Each structure stands twice: as C-alpha cells, then as structure tokens.
C-alpha cells in the first residue's frame, strides 16, 4: 500500500514536470512530436529506474558509512553522467532498433535535472531500496505521461493561428500551466 502511494504520488500528484518543475528543458524541447516524446519518455524512465538503484547504493553503502555526505552532489552527478554513457553503450551493443529509437535522446538526459532531482529527493526522504525503485519508476511514468500529453496538444497547436510572439516556448508554457491545473485534480486521490 505504501509503495502504491509512492508510485501514484510520483507519477500523478507530485508530477516531476508539472508540480516540481524538474526536467522542463526536455519538456519544452522534445514535446513537438508524439513519437519522439514517447521515446524520450521511455529513455528517461529507463535511466531513472537505474539511477534510483545506483544512487541508493552509492548513498547508503559509501557516502553515509564513511561520513562524506558532503560529496553527494559531485558524486551523484558524475555517476549519472557515466551511467548514461554506459547505458548508451549497452543499448548500442544489445539492440540496434532500441538504440535507433532512444539513442539521440540519451546524451540529453545527462543534463536533465529530473534525474539528479530524483536521486536527491530519494536520499532526502530516506527511502528503502524497493521504495526508491518504485519512486524512480513512478517519476519516469509521470514524466512520460506529461511529455506525451503535451506533445499531443502541441501537434494540434501547430494547425492553429497562434499570435506570432507567442509561437514556440511561450504558448507551450501557457499550455503546461493549464495542464498543471488539470493534474491538480489528482491530488484528492490519496
């Protein structure tokens, strides 16, 4: 039950993009086509799940026992960067179609603050390994969901007559605002 709450809270109620404002850059940048939005979402979810495990191990087995908690930020960011590189290499070797689908998005993920945010939040909340795994997966699903909905709306927006100064990022932000309002409705679920 506790795990269930963590999952839904991360995916819907405290959606990373729409209520924590994490990962806005890819949210604005890669949300103009549904197909690429889905690929980006999947790649991010994949990295998020792995990050939640690795950062938990790093935090609880190395940083805390040796009392070097102050190295948290540099070590997390380095681990995430090398992890993304590693995942990229593995996918390239294992499955070419998957690499073609996710490949170009993986380097972008390194600078996605949602990943670092996930690792920091999980260590701040003292989650157990299973809990942080579920948290990572929920956050990834929420990110994918927000990105996918947004890209659907933007595909329709392309066909409408948006005032010139509002084209691109401004109208996307305003739409995201309305989406965030809609997502508030989930808050009553728990």
């Amino acid at each position, binding site marked *: 039950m506790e795990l269930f*709450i963590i999952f839904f*809270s991360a995916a819907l*109620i*405290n959606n990373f993009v729409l209520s924590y404002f994490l990962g806005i850059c890819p949210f604005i940048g890669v949300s103009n086509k549904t197909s690429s939005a889905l690929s980006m979402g999947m790649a991010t979810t994949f990295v998020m799940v792995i990050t939640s495990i690795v950062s938990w191990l790093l935090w609880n087995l190395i940083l805390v026992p040796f009392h070097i908690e*102050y*190295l948290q930020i*540099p070590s997390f960011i380095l681990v995430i960067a090398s992890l993304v590189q590693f995942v990229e290499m593995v996918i390239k070797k294992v499955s070419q179609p998957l690499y073609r689908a996710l490949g170009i998005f993986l380097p972008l993920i390194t600078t996605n603050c949602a990943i670092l945010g996930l690792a920091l939040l999980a260590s701040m*909340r003292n989650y157990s390994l299973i809990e942080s795994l579920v948290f990572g997966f929920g956050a990834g699903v929420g990110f994918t969901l927000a990105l996918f909905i947004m890209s659907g709306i933007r595909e329709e927006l392309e066909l409408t007559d948006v005032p010139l100064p509002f084209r691109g990022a401004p109208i996307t932000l305003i739409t995201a605002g309305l989406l965030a309002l809609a997502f508030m409705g989930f*808050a*009553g679920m*728990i």
Partner: protein
Amino acid sequence: MKKIIHIISTLTLIGVVIGAILSFVNNWATPLIELNKKKETEKAVYLVNPLGKKNEKVKANGEIFKVFDEADNLLGYSFVCEGNGFQGKIRIMVGVDKNLEKIISYEVLEQSETPGLGTKILDDPFKKQFNNLFAIPRIEWIKGKAPSKPNEVQTITGATISSVALVNIINSGLENMRKLKEKNLL
C-alpha cells in the same frame, strides 16, 4: 599514451584539490548546521509549551522532551510526530500537559501543503483551536460547523485533507505517548 596520462593526471589533480576544499568547508559548516538544528528544535520545544524554562530529552525512541518550569516541576511534554499530509510529509512539534490530556499548542516543522490552502495549518485561526484543546479520548474534527464539544476542531474550508491529516498525526502521536507512559518510559 602521453595524452591519456595527461588526461588522467589533470582530472585527478582537479579531484584532489576540489576534494580538499570541500572537506575544509564541510568541517567549518557542520558544527554550525548542527547548532542551527538544535536551536530550531529548542525554540519549538518552548513555543508549544510557552511556560517552560528547562527541558530534558526522554531516552525513549523518537524526539520527546520533558518540559519543566523554573523550580523543576514537570509542566508537560513536547514531542515530534509526523505523517502524510495532502502532498507530502507533515512534521510537527506538539505540546501536551503532563497528564497527556490537553494539547497546549503545536508548531509545524516541515510541510509541503498547497500554498494558500493547506498551508493555513500554519496560521492562527486554525492553530488557535488547538490551544488547551481536550484530547480525551482523541481529537475529533468537524466540517463546516463550529465545534460544539471540547475535543473538537473545525477543518479549514478548501483544505479538509490537510486539516484532517494534522488531527490524525496528533492523535497517533498522542496514542504513542500514552503507550510509553503506561510502560513508564516517560
């Protein structure tokens, strides 16, 4: 080969220098941070038990403090309890009298409720209801009407979940305190 050595040695050098600076700053900051935390808890201990002059940490699990007046008479207890609110964890310090019958006051230490709605649990109209509130057998909540019983509080309009969560957190914290008292651990 020469290049690789160059790369590795530069990165190592940066790492070592940075690590040294960080550990220096950390050594300077850690005692100050701990002092801040202690001050904050101490402040909250007396905020919820305003007549208190001295306190002593109880050796049971969790953060429970005995609060005394100047002549070392036991006035009551201040204890920290937490639970889930509307959006995230709510952590509060609660002050009770020495018989664990009356709430004196509470102070929110951590919360992430909706600004403007759920955050009203931090403010006076709602908070005042808990001053000298009877908590036997537990605190009850009522929606949309003025409280009629001595152990009742009215929930905040538009933030029922946050207010009920707060009442539940205090109730379960109080229950825990009573159990500890039965075992003579306080």
